[in-house]
């Protein structure tokens, strides 16, 4: 790896993280506005700068300022340093995933090849899943370190739920990866470029993956770990930016889930009918745009689901994970494996 490569990787990682952080901020706005409009309301629109409101787009900014300047109250019952580390761990997993997503392929520009994926790795898919699974440590740690029974119970709920759905998350991808014959995002996209988008071959896995993904990211209808309005959650003893980090983590994990879905099921950065890698700089821009649009569309769908369905009961959630999603994804894998065996 020469000097230019090193700098380029740093730039890409920074850009990937910035992508996630900005979209996470934007999601705070989308969440408010989308839920408001579909419920015949207007939504938050009062934050203004010099009288300009721009559809309430300043609210995420106001949120950030509030989170950063709020008193970081730490109760005397917490277990240090776990209490401080927990949000960092939860967020670290999400940030790492953001840097491993395939935002684009490889383009030729200025006489050399530029890869648009920040962290290239021949086992990108399991790497992302593992980093995503790492988030459960943050949740459990936060619950335990709170020194409060409510936090503890929330952490336990979170752990049980995330393990249940994490298993389905990985196993629902098994058939697809078997089909692609690779664990690398770029090769998976290349396979889809040569054949067709993954969702065509694995529609069931798409639904399973999105469902398990929504459960992993702890968003409604699976938001039992936090239960914002009724049951108190694992971050009950957190305030200020530490709480904000848990909040952003949820959004970032949603972005990661949508990114993986887009890469493996919706053709990643592909645009049907265009040969992007041969188009130089323009191709690169189009790759990024295509991937971003797909991720945003999936986020929009997840957001809509979040505001449509009521929360599951906890036993229903575990039943869904262990008794429905997991058998279905294993069945999907078996059928796919036999199909590939007979097809070859």
């Amino acid at each position, binding site marked *: 790896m020469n000097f230019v490569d090193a700098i380029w990787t740093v730039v890409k990682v920074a850009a990937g993280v910035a992508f996630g952080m900005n979209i996470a901020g934007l999601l705070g706005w989308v969440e408010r506005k989308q839920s408001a409009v579909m419920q015949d309301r*207007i939504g938050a629109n009062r934050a203004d700068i010099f009288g300009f409101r721009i559809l309430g787009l300043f609210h995420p900014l106001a949120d950030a300022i509030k989170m950063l300047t709020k008193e970081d109250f730490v109760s005397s019952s917490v277990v240090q340093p776990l209490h401080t580390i927990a949000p960092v761990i939860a967020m670290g997993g999400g940030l790492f995933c953001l840097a491993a997503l395939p935002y684009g392929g490889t383009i030729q520009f200025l006489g050399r090849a530029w890869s648009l994926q920040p962290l290239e790795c021949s086992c990108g898919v399991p790497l992302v899943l593992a980093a995503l699974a790492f988030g459960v440590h943050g949740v459990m740690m936060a619950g335990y370190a709170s020194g409060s029974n409510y936090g503890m119970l929330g952490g336990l709920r979170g752990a049980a739920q995330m393990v249940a759905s994490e298993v389905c998350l990985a196993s629902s991808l098994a058939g697809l990866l078997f089909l692609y014959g690779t664990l690398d995002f770029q090769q998976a996209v290349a396979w889809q470029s040569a054949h067709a988008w993954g969702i065509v071959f694995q529609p069931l896995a798409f639904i399973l993956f999105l469902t398990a993904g929504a459960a992993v990211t702890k968003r409604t209808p699976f938001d039992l770990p936090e239960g914002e309005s009724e049951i108190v959650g694992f971050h009950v003893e957190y305030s200020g930016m530490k709480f904000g980090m848990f909040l952003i983590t949820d959004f970032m994990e949603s972005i990661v889930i949508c990114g993986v879905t887009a890469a493996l099921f919706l053709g990643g950065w592909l645009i049907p009918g265009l040969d992007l890698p041969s188009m130089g700089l323009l191709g690169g821009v189009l790759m990024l745009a295509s991937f971003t649009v797909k991720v945003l569309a999936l986020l929009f769908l997840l957001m809509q689901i979040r505001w*449509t369905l009521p929360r599951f009961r906890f036993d229903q959630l575990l039943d869904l994970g262990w008794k429905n999603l997991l058998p279905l994804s294993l069945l999907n894998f078996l059928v796919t494996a036999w199909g590939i065996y007979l097809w070859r």
Partner: protein
Amino acid sequence: MTVKAVERPKRTLATQIYLIEVWKGLAITFRHLFVNLYRHLLRRPDASVTIQYPEDPAVLGRRARTRHRLLKRDDGAPRCTACLLCETICPAKCIRITAENAPDAMIEKRAKTFQIDLGMCVYCGYCVEACPVDAIHMDADDVDTSRYSRKDMIWDMAELMGDKPKRPSAPVADR
């Protein structure tokens, strides 16, 4: 009987699969989302039911319990006979009445001062129920009762009868 028995929806395979029901729910919310967005684009007022309260006036129900009002007799004298029933029943103990002799011998007694501390009032409406001479109502249709000091939350008799407008005690910046 006004009880209407509603049959519990049957569980069928279609509802058990759940995905179909999810899709139906999504269809409703998506329809609302896009229809409302379209109306917002055309700046139609039916795009949302939100009342932008301080700019637009609040829309109150006909039977809403709002700020108290003391009623007058035909000759302009206060109806209140200072029987203290409202002061007695008030669960928030926020009514203060002092009585005096009324010039009219048939009325005998009337309120000299009458104060309600709206900062403590729970808007239960018991005072209205208790009044034997229908002297107090909660229908001023005024909900902007908050002030910058506790003292300003106390309304006296003239203000409750509408003879004197309620003004803040100390000058505060006009908002």
